[in-house]
């Protein structure tokens, strides 16, 4: 009986599915849809690419076809069922035809397609933050299964902080997308760096007497037990009338190497006239890329204010530094991009797992691309260190943090392109020549989500699997464990 009922029900549903109109006019333009998913390249395992038709009409029918699969949706909200989407993504191309009826007449828009391509890591994680400058109240690091719409909290500051004492959580990071080796920082109340090493929780304080701060921006070594981190003394100031809300400076920056196996910290770069930041390992772990700005002003109470005055002179250049992971011996640094000479500033070098490409943020000055409308991406071919602006990815607003999928085929990045304030996540496919496909927004069950949601996405990272430790386990560990102080060790080599 059951066997008969289900196909019968499916047949009934199919019979109810809206049919494309038989008579209609044609227009050459593609429909205006949100998010813009026209002619994008998508991973074959991505969640349904739900969208909203924005052109004004009385009714709509959307027909999606790929191979033998066909699916039609009525209405301006195109929400595609998970099972049907799976069928549609089995073919290399999905063709989308939108019909709109206005004043009793149907019009067929020019069809658009979605090209189905390589798989993507099934999970991503990001921080959800308010767009305020100083306050945060509720912060969560969340993980999303991007093959569907399921999102879960990894850790929330509300589980840790006391009413009077706030807790900030930031900079979550994984070794090669493996969640058994992950980290994030907890600042202020119950502070420390939380390290998950082979699935076990640890809490450390990386500040030593010989370093200027605890670890900040991390990059986990791809093969060994090391994490390169920046040290930062960060300050911020407000713009009176600019699309850039905020100006961020670091009064001082260094780069350290943290050894997870023996909880030791050693300095990689700490030149007092240089502001070194944003370490990023090469794919083989034998080179560390980082950025640094030359700045000379005496350390003291006036340095910060002077730096704000000089902010447009802070140009971060790109460097590489050879490293032998077995002996931990460093080579001499080498300048790759002279930012001061080009009146620009390079930040966040991130190398693809293939080792061929490196994407960085580039802006006019300073260290904080997130709050600079001018921030764009450049891509380096590491075979010859040639670079170009990744115009396929860039928008009139700020492009900032980016992360490579573990197969090196996809770049996920945060951008303010939608409204200039709320950072959203976008994906793009890279081909063998280093060209990116048209970026598309992280699919949401409610296609209007990005417009309704008043928080920002921050620090998107790919993961091969979900984080297995529960939010409560994290919270209880953070609340009950004192951070172990790291030991300082001298640098080897040079």
């Amino acid at each position, binding site marked *: 009986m059951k066997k008969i009922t289900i196909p019968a029900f499916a047949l009934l549903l199919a019979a109810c599915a809206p049919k494309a109109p038989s008579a209609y006019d044609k227009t050459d333009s593609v429909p205006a849809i949100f998010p813009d998913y026209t002619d994008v390249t998508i991973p074959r395992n991505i969640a349904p690419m739900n969208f909203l038709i924005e052109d004004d009409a009385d009714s709509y029918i959307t027909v999606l076809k790929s191979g033998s699969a066909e699916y039609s949706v009525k209405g301006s909200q195109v929400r595609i069922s998970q099972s049907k989407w799976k069928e549609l993504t089995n073919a290399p191309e999905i063709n989308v035809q939108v019909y709109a009826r206005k004043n009793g007449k149907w019009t067929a828009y020019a069809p658009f397609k979605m090209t189905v391509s390589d798989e993507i890591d099934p999970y991503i994680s990001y921080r959800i933050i308010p767009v305020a400058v100083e306050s945060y109240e509720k912060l969560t690091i969340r993980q999303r299964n991007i093959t569907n719409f399921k999102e879960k909290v990894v850790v929330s500051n509300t*589980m840790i902080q006391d009413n009077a004492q706030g807790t900030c959580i930031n900079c979550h990071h994984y070794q090669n997308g493996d969640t058994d080796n992950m980290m994030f920082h907890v600042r202020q109340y119950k502070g420390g760096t939380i390290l998950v090493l082979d699935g076990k929780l640890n809490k450390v304080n990386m500040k030593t007497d010989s370093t200027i701060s605890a670890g900040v921006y991390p990059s986990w070594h791809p093969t060994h037990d090391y994490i390169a981190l920046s040290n930062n003394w960060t300050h911020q100031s*407000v713009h009176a009338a600019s699309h850039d809300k905020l100006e961020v400076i670091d009064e001082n920056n260094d780069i350290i190497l943290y050894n997870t196996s023996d909880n030791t910290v050693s300095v990689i770069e700490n030149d007092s006239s240089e502001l070194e930041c944003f370490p990023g390992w090469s794919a083989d772990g034998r080179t560390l890329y980082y950025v640094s700005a030359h700045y000379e002003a005496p350390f003291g109470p006036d340095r910060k204010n002077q730096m704000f005055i000089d902010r447009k002179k802070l140009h971060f250049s790109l460097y590489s530094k050879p490293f032998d992971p077995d002996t931990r011996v460093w080579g001499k640094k080498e300048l790759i991009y002279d930012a001061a000479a080009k009146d620009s500033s390079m930040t966040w070098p991130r190398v693809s797992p293939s080792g061929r490409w490196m994407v960085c943020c580039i802006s006019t000055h300073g260290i904080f691309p997130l709050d600079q409308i001018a921030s764009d991406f450049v891509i380096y071919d590491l075979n010859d260190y040639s670079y170009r602006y990744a115009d396929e990815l860039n928008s009139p607003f700020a492009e900032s943090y980016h992360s490579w999928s573990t197969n090196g085929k996809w770049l996920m990045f945060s951008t303010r392109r939608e*409204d200039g304030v709320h950072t959203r996540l976008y994906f793009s496919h890279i081909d063998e020549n280093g060209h990116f496909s048209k970026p598309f927004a992280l699919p949401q069950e409610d296609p209007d989500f990005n417009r309704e949601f008043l928080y920002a996405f921050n620090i998107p990272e790919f993961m091969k699997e979900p984080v297995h430790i529960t939010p*409560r386990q994290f919270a209880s560990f953070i609340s009950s464990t004192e951070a172990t102080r790291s030991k300082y060790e001298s640098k080897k080599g040079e």
Partner: protein
Amino acid sequence: MNQKKENNKTSLIWYSRLILPVALWVILNLCSADFLLKVEERSHFEFDWFWFTGFLKEPSGLLSWLGLFFTQFLYLPWLGSLLWVLLLTASGELTVKIFKVPGYLSVLAYIPAFIFVVYNMSMGYMVYLMNHPGYFFMPVLGYLWALFTVVIIRKPHNPAASLIITIIIGFAGYYIAGFYALAALITACADSFRSDRSRLSRILILTAAAITIVLSPILMVSTTEYYIGTGWTLGLPDHVHTVPLLRMQGALILAMIVLLLISLLPHGELNGKKYIPIIIQFALLVGIIASTSILWYKDANFKTELRMIRAADNMKWEEVTRILEKASQSQDSDWQPTRVMVTLKDLALIKTGKDGDYAFSFSDGSCEQKRKWDVPMSIQIGHTLGFHYGIPGLCQRWCFETSTILGWKNIIFKYSAMTAILFNNTALSEKFLTKMDNTLFYRKWAKEQRKLVYDRSLMQKTAPYDLVLPLLCHEDRITSDLEGCETFIRRHFTGPSPVHSTPMYDRAALLFAMKSKDPTLFWTRFVLYLDSNNPKKIDRFYQEAAYLYSQQGNSDLLLKALPFDEQTKNLYKSFQNLAQRTGPKDLEEANRIFPANLRHTFFYYYYYVNNLKLF
């Protein structure tokens, strides 16, 4: 005859129960309409599914949603307060009915309602800190849910059915109403011991309630992002800044304890004792009225501020100064305004072009706001000042900070949208305007604003942009507002002059130069003012400052060159004579000695208004 007396007694009880709500409604509208408007302005309700589903994620979210639904009607204070009073009345009347409260004690049933009144109306400046969505209506709605719970649990007499109903209504109730549902279960248990149900039935209700009270917060909270400790009090306002938890929650917990006690009251009237019921009733009434009246927040400065802020937000600049003038007239000579009043007054004078003639004709000072907890001025009016003083970065910053700390509010959406429009950011403007489209009372406003998004030429002749653009002629600069938004504004206008300034900007810059008491800065700004404004006659207070600084610098050239009025010279002479004769030590003494015409001069400001605490 006896029947007639009994009827009279009943009528008295009825009248008192009728008069109180009516009196409350009248008082709310006559004395506290500005406060009610502030409550509404600092809330937000949308007729939108996405927005609604946000409330389903947390226990007590539905009660919050419902609280916000009612709060939106405070936009029309008479309507919102009427709904509130009706709900409060219903809570009292239903309490009498459900627990069969004897007539002579029936006023007791109104005590929770009056606790809710006192809780809300004693808030004062705490209104700026309340971050719990729907907090104004939630207590009475939660209380009504508690009454509903008692009635539902009473229904079945079968022990098994009682057990199931208690668990279902307990868990569902916690999801809907949080703390109030848990308090309702305790009341229902007490109630079950007064009814004629079986012992087994009572034990089962008690057991079911205990299990639900312990488990529902643990189970539900374990699936949310909340700290476990807050599970039992979800639905009550949480700790904000330095406000103690007891202040936020104590009264509301007390109201539910009163409900529990009411459920234990004896049934039946006091037969044969003619006057005792009337005396008890009267005593209760007097107690309620007296305590409400004492605890009701009635600070005159707070009221003045509320009215001035509202006038400024509605761009009624003449009214801003009128309100301050009226308020100062009703006070003693040593009365000082708060900094909120002073900054709004200066803003209004700049907007109306009357700064030069009126800026110092109001008392200045730094009267402390009457409040127990820190409420930064930036949270109170940072967005208003930032926007109207032509510093959109400051406005945007405080919109975002306030929304982060205290949640999104109508006033914050309004200023966020207007700032986005000023920045020519269509997508962001649309985002905030769509939020206002989804409201009942602001959709018309949103429609009007949307016209500006797509036709910027309208801005030149549309308020408030017409009077903001002239102040937005400055170059972008970065600065810190950690010392407070008033200091930020002062630093902004005393900073570098814009390359292409406007007459309004130059007047504002001159006013702030005068406030800084820096003669060099004054002369620089004075020249710019003369150049851009080209006045036929130099405004009174600018003359006074120029005359004072010329005298100080012994500049005969300036004294001869500038066309000073005789009145300025005479005032200066009178001022100096009195000052030399009496030599007051501080502002307080000077306020007593100097007559109004000399108090309201720049000379007086220069010599006696010192060390003002800016915010």
